[in-house]
């Protein structure tokens, strides 16, 4: 049971990053290989504000989110827009170029030594009916779910959300009714960057802040997004939570003979396996709709 709770917490982080990937893929058709690095960069910005400039936690948090949003919008307009309509390969290489450059920048500016970023939720642990839960885990789950709900409300009930959805589904017709499609897509990137920032800030307290922090998380996020359906936001969230719980359960089950082949090093390959199996068996994922191509 304990593993389920911890799994939900790490799953929440995967869900946030997976959501970012899904938003970007749905609106611009790009798989952003640099999403993890962007999240790492945002987390370092937050750390700098807190550790070097004495900001208090929540103001730093909000400022980082705002900066990440702007960064995401800028990235779309400057880097992605020129290659948007081009070949898949070109876009892949561009996002990979971003991955390399941002990772390099983080190392260049802040060095490779791990830093400490404290959790805003403190380090208490609660004992609920025999299950030991850390306050950080609870906080993570709460924040993750809270943001998902906020985002859902944004897309469902606001004009901007509607415009973004319209731009993703049918840019041509959206333009005809006056939606400024390019800006909507850029907003999508901004939102995704913000989600990534939250994911990074929530991850740093547990694993330590270093330049490679989000690389594994990115893979798990890919697996979650694929599992849930790469165009389905709900799927990304469910997929993330499921994956988090699954991986933790496997760790727990190693005490039983049936599962003792599993070890920590196999977490990533298991995620890979999830990606492969889902793509082969049901490419649209749990919640996605199968893609139909016109000939």
């Amino acid at each position, binding site marked *: 049971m304990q593993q389920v709770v911890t799994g939900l917490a790490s799953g929440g982080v995967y869900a946030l990053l997976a959501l970012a990937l899904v938003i970007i*893929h749905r609106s611009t058709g790009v*798989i952003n*290989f640099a999403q993890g690095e962007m999240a790492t960069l945002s987390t370092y*910005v937050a750390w*700098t*504000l807190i550790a*070097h*400039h004495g900001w208090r936690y929540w103001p730093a948090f909000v*400022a980082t989110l705002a900066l990440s949003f702007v960064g995401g919008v800028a990235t779309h307009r400057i*880097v992605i827009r*020129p*290659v948007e309509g*081009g*070949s*898949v*390969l*070109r876009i*892949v*290489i*561009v996002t*990979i*170029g*971003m*991955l*390399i*450059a*941002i*990772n*390099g*920048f*983080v*190392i*260049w*500016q802040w*060095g*490779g030594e791990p830093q400490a970023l404290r959790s805003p939720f403190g380090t208490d642990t609660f004992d609920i009916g025999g299950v030991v839960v850390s306050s950080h885990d609870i906080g993570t789950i709460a924040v993750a779910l809270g943001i998902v709900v906020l985002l859902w409300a944004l897309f469902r009930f606001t004009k901007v959300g509607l415009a973004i959805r319209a731009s993703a589904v049918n840019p041509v017709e959206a333009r005809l009714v006056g939606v400024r499609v390019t800006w909507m897509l850029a907003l999508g990137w901004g939102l995704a960057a913000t989600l990534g920032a939250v994911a990074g800030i929530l991850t740093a307290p547990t694993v330590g802040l270093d*330049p490679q922090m989000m*690389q594994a998380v990115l*893979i798990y996020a*890919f*697996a979650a997004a*694929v599992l849930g359906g*790469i165009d389905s936001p709900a799927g990304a969230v469910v997929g993330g939570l499921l994956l988090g719980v699954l991986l933790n359960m496997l760790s727990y089950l190693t005490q039983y003979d049936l599962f003792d082949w599993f*070890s920590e*090093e*196999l*977490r*990533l*390959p298991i*995620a*890979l396996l999830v*990606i*492969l199996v889902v*793509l*082969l068996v049901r*490419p649209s994922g749990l919640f996605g709709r199968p893609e139909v191509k016109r*000939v």
Partner: protein
Amino acid sequence: MTPRFTRLVGFAAFAVFVVFVAVLPSFISDFKAQQYAYVGIYLIALLGLNILTGYTGQISLGHGAFMAIGGYTSAILMAGNEQFGGPLSGGLKDVWTIPLAGLVAGLAGLAFGLPALRLSGLYLALATFAIAVSLPSAVKRFEEFTGGGSGINLFGTPELTGSLTPVEIFDRTLTYNDWLYYLSWSSALVAFAVAWLILRDRTGRAFRAVRDSETAAVSSGVSLARYKMLAFGISAAYAGVAGGLYAIANTFVNPDTFPIALSIFLLVGVVVGGLGGLSGLLFGAIFIYFLPLWSQGQDLGSLLPDSVVQGDTIGIPLLGDFVFKGTSAAGGPAIVYGIVLILLMFLIPNGVSGIFRRVGQLVSRRRYSRSS
């Protein structure tokens, strides 16, 4: 420019190139010979990946994994894995392990080609990316077979040519690096010739048909399954050969010898070199080997305006000070590399081969438009 003439020019150029490669070591330092040996190794991998991505249009971000398979096959065949509790005792001379490395990797490629039939475009990129990222972890897990985290050391083993006794060919003694250079470049030239043979007739056309339009290809009778699997198998075999050579050149293999960065660089090399063009790949190989080194040595601080000096701090509101270190500081070369990559995708989306082709088109257009 009749096709016949172009072909003759191509042959002549190739012959010149072979001669150039053969005599180059006499003019360059020993260290540079080793560097160019690595360029040759990358070229082999790029030739293979080009068949898959350039000709058949399947994106693979995981060819480092096939190189790893080839490299480990080579190492295990040479040094054996008994010391870790594995079943094999090794003892095969390094040169003979190379074709076997290619074979094993090729089979793995064929095996992967089957499930890959269901994936395309971004999804295939994602799946292959995931494979390349998780391979080091999987390698560490199966220690008895692969030597786990510490890998397999080849230095000083009798199977590795030149490690215990000097290399002698045709009564001449070669330095170790020169031997490496000739080994990899003779393999590269053979690989190039084989690729050219594979690609020029039906098979090449079938590959390109798959890339350009799967629907049209199927309607013309080209079996998607067959050619996609074939492309995976061939490209994986090439990567395996490159991997085996890589293991020999490094004189060891461990899980970190074939990181995800390698897979990424290979794809970059193919795209920068130009998809579908064999000559551009040479530039691709040189690019992926030398750009990281070049950006390390550069001091791009000189590009900044005079008012900004090395070590200067700039106050950015909110974020505080931003210090300018030279680009040779850790992480700097990566920034340069990433930015160069993005710029290249903006400026030459078709790679170096694309530029060659444009030039060729311009030239032939002139000839045809002259009134006869």
